[in-house]
């Protein structure tokens, strides 16, 4: 409960700033219009106009909220104009990509921790993989996969996995490596097998790392899925909403898709946070 005050304060500040920028940025258009019509506009008229423009440079918060409400609650979720419909398209690619990415990330981490050659040979490539801008890579992945007959969900999921395996593998390498020498020696005195060392020590000790990695990973997955929708001129998904919005100058639509994806990311991260809390509580690691 103590967190409510700071959270509200920050939210209010953001909203106030947002409105401020809306007024400043949108007023240019209002003044131009008035100039052309040869009329003088007062400050209160500018203020009023900047809040209700059709294609504002920066939509005011309430415009975005109304658009969000309109495209989620007031539309059937099967409708092409429903944000829920588009959200689901992106979410399905996100989740598939997240599962692939997490699986790959954990497997790589296991390999790296157990094998010196992999540590030296693979780790640099993992890091190099993330220095290539995904925006440059995404179209190529889509084209290559299309040529072997894959389109739609899978290519997007692969781009999404490409972004999410990284935080998971790096985080889990750190997690699997955190047992201290005494904790390792202890198992050695029991003549424990390597697999037992892994399951009884490395896995449980890495749990806090796992959840942190998953949170970063799922957010990266969502970004990947959206990016994967951009180069194809996709007809559905949050990325498609962003794209069509920018084609037609529908800034309100762009911003509502943006806020929509932010909300989706928050829900995903929040869900992982809940599982984290529950798991670490049961393990006695949350204090």
């Amino acid at each position, binding site marked *: 409960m103590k967190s409510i005050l700071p959270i509200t304060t920050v939210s209010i500040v953001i909203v106030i700033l947002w409105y401020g920028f809306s007024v400043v940025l949108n007023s240019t258009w209002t003044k131009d219009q008035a100039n052309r019509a040869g009329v003088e506009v007062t400050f209160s008229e500018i203020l009023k106009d900047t809040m209700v423009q059709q294609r504002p440079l920066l939509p005011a918060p309430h415009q975005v909220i109304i658009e969000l409400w309109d495209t989620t609650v007031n539309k059937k979720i099967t409708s092409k104009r429903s944000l829920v419909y588009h959200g689901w398209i992106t979410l399905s690619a996100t989740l598939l990509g997240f599962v692939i990415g997490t699986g790959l990330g954990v497997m790589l981490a296991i390999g790296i921790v157990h094998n010196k050659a992999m540590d030296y040979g693979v780790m640099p490539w993992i890091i190099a993989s993330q220095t290539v801008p995904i925006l440059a890579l995404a179209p190529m992945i889509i084209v290559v996969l299309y040529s072997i007959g894959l389109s739609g969900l899978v290519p997007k999921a692969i781009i999404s996995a490409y972004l999410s395996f990284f935080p998971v593998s790096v985080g889990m390498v750190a997690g699997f490596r955190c047992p201290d020498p005494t904790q390792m020696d202890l198992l050695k005195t*029991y003549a424990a097998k390597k697999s037992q060392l892994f399951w009884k020590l490395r896995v449980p000790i890495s749990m806090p790392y796992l959840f942190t990695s998953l949170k970063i990973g799922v957010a990266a997955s969502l970004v990947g899925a959206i990016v994967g929708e951009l180069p194809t001129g996709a007809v559905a998904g949050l990325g498609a909403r962003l794209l069509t919005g920018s084609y037609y100058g529908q800034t309100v639509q762009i911003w509502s898709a943006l806020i929509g994806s932010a909300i989706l990311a928050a829900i995903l991260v929040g869900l992982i946070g809940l599982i984290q809390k529950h798991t670490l509580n049961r393990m006695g690691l949350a204090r």
Partner: protein
Amino acid sequence: MNSTVVMDTEPVIKARKLGLVFQTKDSPVEALKDVNIDIEQGDFVSLIGPSGCGKTTLLRIIASLDKPTAGDITVNGMTPEEARLQRAYGYVFQAASLYPWRTIAGNVKLPLEIMGFSKTEMNERVKKVLDLVHLSGFENKFPWQLSGGMQQRASIARALSFDADILLMDEPFGALDEIVRDHLNEQLLELWKSTGKTICFVTHSIPEAVYLSTRIVVMSNRPGKVVEVIESSLPRERPLDIRDSPEFIEIAQRVRMDLRMSHSYE
């Protein structure tokens, strides 16, 4: 002469001309040199010496956590590694090093899980050893909910749970205050008497060594060597106030003299 007699007289732990040289960046460090030691079945042997004298290293070699670079050592007539693979000993570390994500019962169960005991057997053993260290009722607590002394008792229970004949203890009470330490020393003696285990105990406290041991191995540093092995004339039955007896004081003085003569405190 039949073979069982030979088995009985063979020391549980036997080291001859044992040496260990650590390779460090600037120069090799001689941690142990020409160590000869015999630990008999049922002995309570303390290794005492200043820090850096290799007493922990010696214990780690016995446990096959470190490898000697010279000499011979056998544990139960085998190499230390063979003995370790046969789970010949329980090891108690300086810090309790309980796994924080396991409850007390879960921690005691850890070696049993690894060694593949059945579920009912595990539960029986956990109950028995927690009783032995007076921790019944704390099964479901997490380590951080217990005091340092209780944590160390739990780690002793963990080392006892699979009933190895040898107990290796590396300054287990070093970090505890004197009141708790006295109490745990008393309990440890009780435990040793009731289980008949062979205990090898590292300490740098003279009263602790004299109070607990049947034999005291005094070590010196640079290089780590055995200065003298003192046989204790104290009876096995040892109330705490035995520490005020002339006999006790005499042994303590001898240990102190040995320690003083053998080191230079640069």
